[in-house]
Protein backbone atom coordinates (compact mmCIF):
# COMPACT_ATOMS: atom_id res chain seq x y z
CA UNK A 1 0.00 0.00 0.00
CA UNK A 2 1.06 3.56 -0.63
CA UNK A 3 0.59 5.76 2.42
CA UNK A 4 1.24 9.47 2.79
CA UNK A 5 1.84 10.45 6.40
CA UNK A 6 1.54 14.16 7.14
CA UNK A 7 3.20 15.54 10.26
CA UNK A 8 6.68 14.55 11.40
CA UNK A 9 6.14 14.75 15.15
CA UNK A 10 6.47 11.70 17.37
CA UNK A 11 3.32 10.06 16.03
CA UNK A 12 4.16 10.63 12.37
CA UNK A 13 7.78 9.61 12.84
CA UNK A 14 7.07 6.27 14.50
CA UNK A 15 4.11 5.59 12.22
CA UNK A 16 6.33 6.09 9.18
CA UNK A 17 9.04 3.82 10.58
CA UNK A 18 6.56 1.06 11.36
CA UNK A 19 4.94 1.29 7.95
CA UNK A 20 8.31 1.10 6.21
CA UNK A 21 9.22 -1.93 8.27
CA UNK A 22 5.99 -3.64 7.30
CA UNK A 23 6.96 -3.19 3.67
CA UNK A 24 4.59 -0.39 2.69
CA UNK A 25 5.50 2.45 0.38
CA UNK A 26 5.50 5.60 2.51
CA UNK A 27 6.06 9.32 2.05
CA UNK A 28 6.27 11.55 5.12
CA UNK A 29 5.45 15.24 4.81
CA UNK A 30 6.87 17.64 7.40
CA UNK A 31 6.74 21.39 6.86
CA UNK A 32 9.55 22.28 9.25
CA UNK A 33 12.58 21.82 7.02
CA UNK A 34 15.01 21.25 9.87
CA UNK A 35 12.88 18.52 11.40
CA UNK A 36 12.29 17.09 7.93
CA UNK A 37 16.00 16.80 7.20
CA UNK A 38 16.66 15.24 10.61
CA UNK A 39 14.12 12.54 9.91
CA UNK A 40 15.36 12.20 6.33
CA UNK A 41 18.91 11.55 7.57
CA UNK A 42 17.60 8.74 9.68
CA UNK A 43 14.99 6.96 7.63
CA UNK A 44 16.00 7.85 4.10
CA UNK A 45 14.75 9.98 1.26
CA UNK A 46 11.05 9.50 1.74
CA UNK A 47 10.55 12.84 3.45
CA UNK A 48 8.92 15.73 1.59
CA UNK A 49 9.90 18.91 3.45
CA UNK A 50 6.67 20.78 2.74
CA UNK A 51 3.25 21.61 4.14
CA UNK A 52 0.75 18.83 3.52
CA UNK A 53 -2.11 21.33 3.68
CA UNK A 54 -1.08 22.68 0.30
CA UNK A 55 -2.41 20.99 -2.80
CA UNK A 56 0.72 21.46 -4.84
CA UNK A 57 2.89 19.67 -2.28
CA UNK A 58 0.38 16.90 -1.75
CA UNK A 59 0.58 16.40 -5.51
CA UNK A 60 4.36 16.33 -5.30
CA UNK A 61 4.16 13.66 -2.62
CA UNK A 62 2.05 11.54 -4.96
CA UNK A 63 -1.43 12.07 -3.54
CA UNK A 64 -2.92 11.17 -6.92
CA UNK A 65 -2.05 7.52 -6.40
CA UNK A 66 -2.08 7.30 -2.60
CA UNK A 67 -4.21 4.59 -1.01
CA UNK A 68 -4.21 6.29 2.36
CA UNK A 69 -3.47 9.77 3.68
CA UNK A 70 -2.90 9.87 7.43
CA UNK A 71 -2.91 13.39 8.93
CA UNK A 72 -1.25 13.15 12.32
CA UNK A 73 -0.03 16.64 13.15
CA UNK A 74 -0.72 18.08 16.57
CA UNK A 75 -3.25 20.57 15.20
CA UNK A 76 -6.80 19.47 14.49
CA UNK A 77 -7.40 22.23 11.96
CA UNK A 78 -4.37 21.18 9.92
CA UNK A 79 -5.42 17.54 9.99
CA UNK A 80 -8.89 18.47 8.78
CA UNK A 81 -7.58 20.53 5.87
CA UNK A 82 -5.08 17.82 4.87
CA UNK A 83 -7.81 15.18 4.75
CA UNK A 84 -10.27 17.40 2.91
CA UNK A 85 -7.67 18.35 0.29
CA UNK A 86 -6.69 14.69 -0.12
CA UNK A 87 -10.30 13.59 -0.40
CA UNK A 88 -11.70 16.25 -2.67
CA UNK A 89 -8.77 17.09 -4.88
CA UNK A 90 -6.96 13.81 -5.15
CA UNK A 91 -9.82 11.37 -4.51
CA UNK A 92 -7.75 9.51 -1.93
CA UNK A 93 -9.90 6.50 -0.96
CA UNK A 94 -9.03 6.49 2.74
CA UNK A 95 -8.25 9.50 4.89
CA UNK A 96 -7.34 9.22 8.55
CA UNK A 97 -7.12 12.17 10.93
CA UNK A 98 -5.65 12.42 14.38
CA UNK A 99 -8.18 14.37 16.44
CA UNK A 100 -6.93 15.98 19.62
CA UNK A 101 -10.17 17.53 20.81
CA UNK A 102 -12.54 14.54 20.98
CA UNK A 103 -15.45 16.91 20.33
CA UNK A 104 -14.13 17.34 16.79
CA UNK A 105 -14.68 13.69 15.89
CA UNK A 106 -18.28 14.24 14.83
CA UNK A 107 -17.42 17.37 12.85
CA UNK A 108 -14.62 15.61 10.98
CA UNK A 109 -16.95 12.73 10.17
CA UNK A 110 -19.56 15.13 8.79
CA UNK A 111 -16.94 16.90 6.73
CA UNK A 112 -15.86 13.75 4.94
CA UNK A 113 -12.84 12.46 6.87
CA UNK A 114 -13.06 8.66 6.68
CA UNK A 115 -11.57 7.80 10.05
CA UNK A 116 -10.96 9.84 13.16
CA UNK A 117 -8.48 8.69 15.76
CA UNK A 118 -8.64 10.51 19.08
CA UNK A 119 -5.85 9.62 21.51
CA UNK A 120 -7.69 11.67 24.13
CA UNK A 121 -10.82 9.57 23.68
CA UNK A 122 -8.81 6.35 23.79
CA UNK A 123 -7.09 7.19 27.04
CA UNK A 124 -10.39 8.38 28.46
CA UNK A 125 -12.00 5.11 27.41
CA UNK A 126 -9.22 3.18 29.03
CA UNK A 127 -9.63 5.05 32.30
CA UNK A 128 -13.39 4.76 32.25
CA UNK A 129 -13.19 1.01 31.75
CA UNK A 130 -11.71 0.73 35.19
CA UNK A 131 -13.93 3.04 37.15
CA UNK A 132 -17.65 2.70 37.66
CA UNK A 133 -19.50 4.80 35.12
CA UNK A 134 -23.16 5.54 34.99
CA UNK A 135 -23.30 6.22 31.35
CA UNK A 136 -22.99 4.45 28.06
CA UNK A 137 -19.38 3.85 27.17
CA UNK A 138 -18.31 4.31 23.57
CA UNK A 139 -16.07 1.50 22.47
CA UNK A 140 -15.69 2.27 18.79
CA UNK A 141 -17.17 3.94 15.77
CA UNK A 142 -18.13 1.43 13.10
CA UNK A 143 -19.84 1.12 9.75
CA UNK A 144 -18.89 4.22 7.82
CA UNK A 145 -19.02 6.31 10.98
CA UNK A 146 -22.73 6.53 11.73
CA UNK A 147 -22.82 3.65 14.21
CA UNK A 148 -21.41 3.39 17.68
CA UNK A 149 -20.38 0.28 19.52
CA UNK A 150 -21.43 0.90 23.10
CA UNK A 151 -21.25 -0.74 26.47
CA UNK A 152 -23.52 -0.23 29.49
CA UNK A 153 -22.72 -1.58 32.91
CA UNK A 154 -25.92 -2.31 34.83
CA UNK A 155 -26.29 -1.30 38.45
CA UNK A 156 -28.67 -2.64 41.11
CA UNK A 157 -31.15 0.09 40.31
CA UNK A 158 -30.88 0.02 36.52
CA UNK A 159 -34.32 -0.43 34.93
CA UNK A 160 -33.10 -3.25 32.66
CA UNK A 161 -32.06 -5.48 35.59
CA UNK A 162 -34.31 -8.54 35.89
CA UNK A 163 -35.66 -8.03 32.39
CA UNK A 164 -35.40 -10.33 29.44
CA UNK A 165 -32.73 -8.73 27.23
CA UNK A 166 -34.37 -9.75 23.99
CA UNK A 167 -37.72 -8.31 25.09
CA UNK A 168 -36.54 -4.78 25.89
CA UNK A 169 -38.11 -2.05 23.81
CA UNK A 170 -35.15 -0.54 22.00
CA UNK A 171 -35.04 2.45 19.70
CA UNK A 172 -34.97 1.68 15.97
CA UNK A 173 -31.56 1.14 14.45
CA UNK A 174 -30.10 -0.35 17.58
CA UNK A 175 -29.39 -3.93 18.73
CA UNK A 176 -27.94 -5.58 21.80
CA UNK A 177 -25.87 -8.62 21.01
CA UNK A 178 -23.89 -9.74 24.03
CA UNK A 179 -23.50 -9.55 27.78
CA UNK A 180 -20.26 -9.79 29.69
CA UNK A 181 -20.97 -11.42 33.04
CA UNK A 182 -18.07 -12.07 35.42
CA UNK A 183 -15.68 -11.50 32.54
CA UNK A 184 -17.41 -14.21 30.47
CA UNK A 185 -19.01 -13.12 27.20
CA UNK A 186 -22.50 -14.48 26.59
CA UNK A 187 -24.57 -14.06 23.44
CA UNK A 188 -28.00 -12.56 24.06
CA UNK A 189 -30.63 -15.26 23.59
CA UNK A 190 -34.40 -15.34 23.88
CA UNK A 191 -34.13 -16.16 27.58
CA UNK A 192 -31.24 -13.95 28.71
CA UNK A 193 -32.21 -12.25 31.97
CA UNK A 194 -30.11 -9.20 32.75
CA UNK A 195 -28.40 -8.90 36.14
CA UNK A 196 -26.75 -6.12 38.08
CA UNK A 197 -23.07 -5.96 37.13
CA UNK A 198 -23.68 -7.16 33.58
CA UNK A 199 -21.91 -5.27 30.84
CA UNK A 200 -24.34 -5.08 27.95
CA UNK A 201 -22.85 -4.63 24.48
CA UNK A 202 -24.81 -3.08 21.70
CA UNK A 203 -24.50 -1.34 18.40
CA UNK A 204 -26.64 1.52 17.23
CA UNK A 205 -27.03 4.81 15.46
CA UNK A 206 -25.55 7.75 17.33
CA UNK A 207 -28.89 9.52 17.73
CA UNK A 208 -30.46 6.49 19.50
CA UNK A 209 -28.10 6.81 22.37
CA UNK A 210 -30.19 8.85 24.75
CA UNK A 211 -33.12 6.46 24.46
CA UNK A 212 -30.84 3.44 24.87
CA UNK A 213 -29.36 4.98 27.98
CA UNK A 214 -32.86 5.42 29.40
CA UNK A 215 -33.89 1.83 28.68
CA UNK A 216 -30.75 0.25 30.11
CA UNK A 217 -29.57 2.59 32.84
CA UNK A 218 -32.39 5.03 33.48
CA UNK A 219 -32.26 8.82 33.35
CA UNK A 220 -28.74 10.18 33.52
CA UNK A 221 -28.16 11.55 36.99
CA UNK A 222 -26.33 14.87 36.96
CA UNK A 223 -24.15 14.22 39.99
Amino acid at each position, binding site marked *: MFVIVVGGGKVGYYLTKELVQSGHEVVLMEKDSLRASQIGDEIGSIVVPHDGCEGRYLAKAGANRADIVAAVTGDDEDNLVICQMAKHHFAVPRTIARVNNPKNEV*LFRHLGVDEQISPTRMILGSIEENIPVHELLHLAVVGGGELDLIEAQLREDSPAVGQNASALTLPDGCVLFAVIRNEVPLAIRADTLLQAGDKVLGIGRTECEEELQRVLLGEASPD
Partner: protein
Amino acid sequence: MRIIIVGCGRVGSLLAESLDAAGHEVVILDTATRAFDRLPDSFKGDAVRGDGTDEDVLRRAGAEGADIFLALTEGDNRNVMTAQMAADALGIKRTVAKINDPLRAAAYAELGVATVCRTNLIADALARYLDLPIAVGPGVQAPGFADEPVPGEQPAAPARRGEG
Protein backbone atom coordinates in the same frame (compact mmCIF):
# COMPACT_ATOMS: atom_id res chain seq x y z
CA MET B 1 -28.44 40.84 13.02
CA ARG B 2 -26.41 38.69 15.37
CA ILE B 3 -22.85 38.42 14.11
CA ILE B 4 -20.05 36.23 15.48
CA ILE B 5 -16.46 37.18 14.70
CA VAL B 6 -13.57 34.86 15.51
CA GLY B 7 -10.23 36.68 15.71
CA CYS B 8 -9.86 40.22 17.04
CA GLY B 9 -7.03 41.32 14.78
CA ARG B 10 -7.11 44.44 12.63
CA VAL B 11 -9.86 43.19 10.35
CA GLY B 12 -11.88 41.53 13.08
CA SER B 13 -11.79 44.51 15.41
CA LEU B 14 -12.55 46.98 12.63
CA LEU B 15 -15.60 44.99 11.56
CA ALA B 16 -16.71 44.48 15.16
CA GLU B 17 -16.52 48.21 15.81
CA SER B 18 -18.36 49.19 12.63
CA LEU B 19 -21.03 46.52 12.85
CA ASP B 20 -21.64 47.37 16.50
CA ALA B 21 -21.91 51.06 15.65
CA ALA B 22 -24.39 50.17 12.91
CA GLY B 23 -26.62 48.61 15.54
CA HIS B 24 -25.86 44.91 15.11
CA GLU B 25 -25.43 42.47 17.95
CA VAL B 26 -21.75 41.52 17.81
CA VAL B 27 -19.84 38.80 19.66
CA ILE B 28 -16.09 38.74 19.05
CA LEU B 29 -13.73 36.00 20.23
CA ASP B 30 -9.97 35.87 20.58
CA THR B 31 -7.56 33.70 22.55
CA ALA B 32 -5.71 36.78 23.85
CA THR B 33 -7.37 39.35 26.08
CA ARG B 34 -4.90 41.93 24.82
CA ALA B 35 -6.40 41.68 21.36
CA PHE B 36 -9.54 43.36 22.70
CA ASP B 37 -7.52 46.53 23.33
CA ARG B 38 -8.17 47.21 19.66
CA LEU B 39 -11.87 47.67 20.39
CA PRO B 40 -13.05 51.19 21.26
CA ASP B 41 -14.54 51.96 24.68
CA SER B 42 -17.83 52.59 22.94
CA PHE B 43 -18.07 48.91 21.84
CA LYS B 44 -21.32 47.51 23.24
CA GLY B 45 -20.99 43.92 22.01
CA ASP B 46 -19.50 40.92 23.79
CA ALA B 47 -15.76 40.26 23.76
CA VAL B 48 -15.15 36.65 24.74
CA ARG B 49 -11.73 35.26 25.48
CA GLY B 50 -11.50 31.69 24.23
CA ASP B 51 -10.53 29.39 21.39
CA GLY B 52 -12.92 30.10 18.55
CA THR B 53 -12.21 26.70 16.99
CA ASP B 54 -13.66 24.94 20.05
CA GLU B 55 -17.33 24.08 19.62
CA ASP B 56 -18.01 24.35 23.37
CA VAL B 57 -16.49 27.83 23.50
CA LEU B 58 -18.57 28.96 20.54
CA ARG B 59 -21.76 27.63 22.10
CA ARG B 60 -21.01 29.31 25.40
CA ALA B 61 -20.44 32.55 23.53
CA GLY B 62 -23.95 32.16 22.12
CA ALA B 63 -22.94 31.47 18.53
CA GLU B 64 -25.69 28.94 17.89
CA GLY B 65 -28.25 30.23 15.44
CA ALA B 66 -26.40 33.50 14.72
CA ASP B 67 -27.05 35.18 11.38
CA ILE B 68 -23.47 35.66 10.27
CA PHE B 69 -20.20 33.98 11.25
CA LEU B 70 -16.84 35.44 10.24
CA ALA B 71 -13.65 33.43 10.75
CA LEU B 72 -10.87 36.01 10.66
CA THR B 73 -7.94 34.63 12.65
CA GLU B 74 -4.41 34.63 11.27
CA GLY B 75 -4.56 30.88 10.59
CA ASP B 76 -6.10 29.76 7.29
CA ASN B 77 -6.78 26.28 8.58
CA ARG B 78 -8.28 27.49 11.83
CA ASN B 79 -10.63 29.68 9.84
CA VAL B 80 -11.55 26.83 7.52
CA MET B 81 -12.31 24.53 10.43
CA THR B 82 -14.29 26.95 12.54
CA ALA B 83 -16.34 28.21 9.58
CA GLN B 84 -17.32 24.66 8.67
CA MET B 85 -18.07 23.97 12.34
CA ALA B 86 -20.34 27.01 12.45
CA ALA B 87 -22.27 25.77 9.42
CA ASP B 88 -22.37 22.10 10.37
CA ALA B 89 -22.80 22.10 14.14
CA LEU B 90 -24.18 25.53 14.95
CA GLY B 91 -26.58 25.89 12.05
CA ILE B 92 -25.30 29.27 10.88
CA LYS B 93 -26.28 29.94 7.28
CA ARG B 94 -23.82 32.66 6.30
CA THR B 95 -20.26 31.85 7.22
CA VAL B 96 -17.11 33.30 5.71
CA ALA B 97 -13.56 32.05 6.20
CA LYS B 98 -10.53 34.24 5.59
CA ILE B 99 -8.04 32.14 3.64
CA ASN B 100 -4.93 33.99 2.58
CA ASP B 101 -3.51 31.17 0.47
CA PRO B 102 -5.21 31.67 -2.93
CA LEU B 103 -5.04 27.98 -3.85
CA ARG B 104 -6.67 26.88 -0.63
CA ALA B 105 -9.26 29.65 -0.94
CA ALA B 106 -10.21 28.39 -4.39
CA ALA B 107 -10.26 24.78 -3.21
CA TYR B 108 -12.62 25.55 -0.33
CA ALA B 109 -14.84 27.74 -2.47
CA GLU B 110 -15.29 24.67 -4.66
CA LEU B 111 -16.28 22.76 -1.54
CA GLY B 112 -18.97 25.29 -0.78
CA VAL B 113 -17.23 27.45 1.82
CA ALA B 114 -17.44 31.21 1.26
CA THR B 115 -13.91 32.54 1.37
CA VAL B 116 -12.17 35.88 1.41
CA CYS B 117 -8.56 35.95 0.29
CA ARG B 118 -6.43 38.91 1.37
CA THR B 119 -3.66 37.99 -1.05
CA ASN B 120 -5.98 38.19 -4.04
CA LEU B 121 -7.70 41.33 -2.73
CA ILE B 122 -4.44 43.26 -2.38
CA ALA B 123 -2.99 42.05 -5.67
CA ASP B 124 -6.23 42.94 -7.41
CA ALA B 125 -6.44 46.38 -5.79
CA LEU B 126 -2.84 47.17 -6.75
CA ALA B 127 -3.31 45.98 -10.31
CA ARG B 128 -6.39 48.19 -10.62
CA TYR B 129 -4.68 51.20 -9.11
CA LEU B 130 -1.69 50.81 -11.40
CA ASP B 131 -3.98 49.99 -14.31
CA LEU B 132 -1.99 46.86 -15.05
CA PRO B 133 -4.32 44.11 -16.15
CA ILE B 134 -3.06 40.89 -14.57
CA ALA B 135 -4.76 37.63 -13.82
CA VAL B 136 -5.65 37.51 -10.13
CA GLY B 137 -8.12 35.16 -8.50
CA PRO B 138 -11.25 36.63 -6.94
CA GLY B 139 -10.92 38.16 -3.48
CA VAL B 140 -14.28 36.89 -2.35
CA GLN B 141 -15.63 33.57 -3.50
CA ALA B 142 -19.09 32.93 -2.27
CA PRO B 143 -20.73 29.79 -3.56
CA GLY B 144 -23.58 30.06 -1.07
CA PHE B 145 -24.75 33.53 -2.07
CA ALA B 146 -23.99 34.05 -5.72
CA ASP B 147 -25.61 37.48 -5.88
CA GLU B 148 -22.67 38.92 -3.93
CA PRO B 149 -20.43 41.33 -5.83
CA VAL B 150 -17.22 39.55 -6.61
CA PRO B 151 -14.13 41.63 -7.32
CA GLY B 152 -11.79 40.53 -10.08
CA GLU B 153 -13.75 40.02 -13.30
CA GLN B 154 -12.63 36.95 -15.11
CA PRO B 155 -12.14 33.80 -13.02
CA ALA B 156 -8.51 33.81 -14.05
CA ALA B 157 -7.12 30.33 -14.31
CA PRO B 158 -3.44 30.80 -13.59
CA ALA B 159 -2.55 28.34 -10.89
CA ARG B 160 -3.61 24.80 -11.70
CA ARG B 161 -3.33 22.70 -8.62
CA GLY B 162 -1.31 19.57 -8.83
CA GLU B 163 1.64 21.24 -10.45
CA GLY B 164 4.73 22.92 -9.18
